[in-house]
């Protein structure tokens, strides 16, 4: 997949390379943004910002890293800077605070346990919460989570294991 994009970029077919990257990664990048922003609308805006930045820097692509690695670096930095700028504007009224990702699923007979689960997730250390949320958002791919967060796969697995143990302990409380 990345090879196709790389060969298009080497042939200076920037628009085609960009469209290929968009086809391959828009959903993954959106889910990553969703994990960081915890709000669908904001995640979609940030996903647009990410691809806009990608389009702007694509002429400088030198082939040293895989295009997806490059894209994930842009995505991570854009999400973090969006979060920082939102943290600076902390005068949000209470009812405008976005719903967490886990609570977005529609309620059903197990709605209560979902709320409890969300509360448990909130109690996890940030890195564990990010890893476990992204793991389920990205269809349980440790490899994808590792590339997105720029962490070794073994570290992702270790955070996953610790998060599961902590969640199980919280549920038993």
């Amino acid at each position, binding site marked *: 997949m990345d090879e196709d994009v790389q060969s298009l970029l080497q042939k200076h077919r920037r628009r085609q390379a960009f469209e290929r990257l968009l086809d391959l990664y828009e959903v993954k990048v959106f889910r990553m943004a969703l994990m960081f922003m915890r709000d669908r609308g904001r995640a979609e805006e940030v996903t647009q910002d990410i*691809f806009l930045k990608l389009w702007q820097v694509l002429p400088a692509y030198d082939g040293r890293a895989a295009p997806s690695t490059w894209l994930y670096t842009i995505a991570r930095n854009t999400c973090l*800077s969006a979060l920082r700028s939102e943290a600076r504007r902390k005068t949000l009224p209470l009812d405008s605070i976005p719903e967490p*990702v886990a609570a977005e699923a529609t309620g059903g007979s197990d709605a209560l346990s*979902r709320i409890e689960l969300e509360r448990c997730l909130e109690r996890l250390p940030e890195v564990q919460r990010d890893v476990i949320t992204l793991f389920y958002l990205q269809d349980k791919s440790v490899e994808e989570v590792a590339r997105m967060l720029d962490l070794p796969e073994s570290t992702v697995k270790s955070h*996953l294991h610790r998060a599961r143990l902590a969640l199980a302990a919280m*549920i038993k409380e």
Partner: protein
Amino acid sequence: MDCREAQEQILESLAETRPGANTPDLEAHMAGCKACRSFSETQFMLDLQLRAAISAPPLSAAFRASLAKRLRREPVSVWHDILPDVAHVAGCVCATALCLLTLPFAAGPVVLAGLAFTVVTYFVQAVLQGSLEAWEEDRG
């Protein structure tokens, strides 16, 4: 296999996209260990609950159109990319011409020195530009 190994293997299998069947060692251990059976049940239930609770909504239908609109507003100019090189060569040509007119040396060595200066400074600015771009990219 002890309980620690068994529980690690259970957690490991949950980190896979499609968890496979338990190994015979793990099956044998769980058959005689109530604590590990309970651990396994808890973890599989937790996996199901997390899978149900953490679901990603799809991108809205307007996403692509809206992105295309923003892209049209910010076209990337090719001129922007080659501008530093053009400015560099033009500056060097002007400086060499000025030296030719003002310095009391023969034209050959002055042109040669100007050419050498242009080449060396071109590589220096290319390295600096590359480092700056890498730094900007790291900052996102």
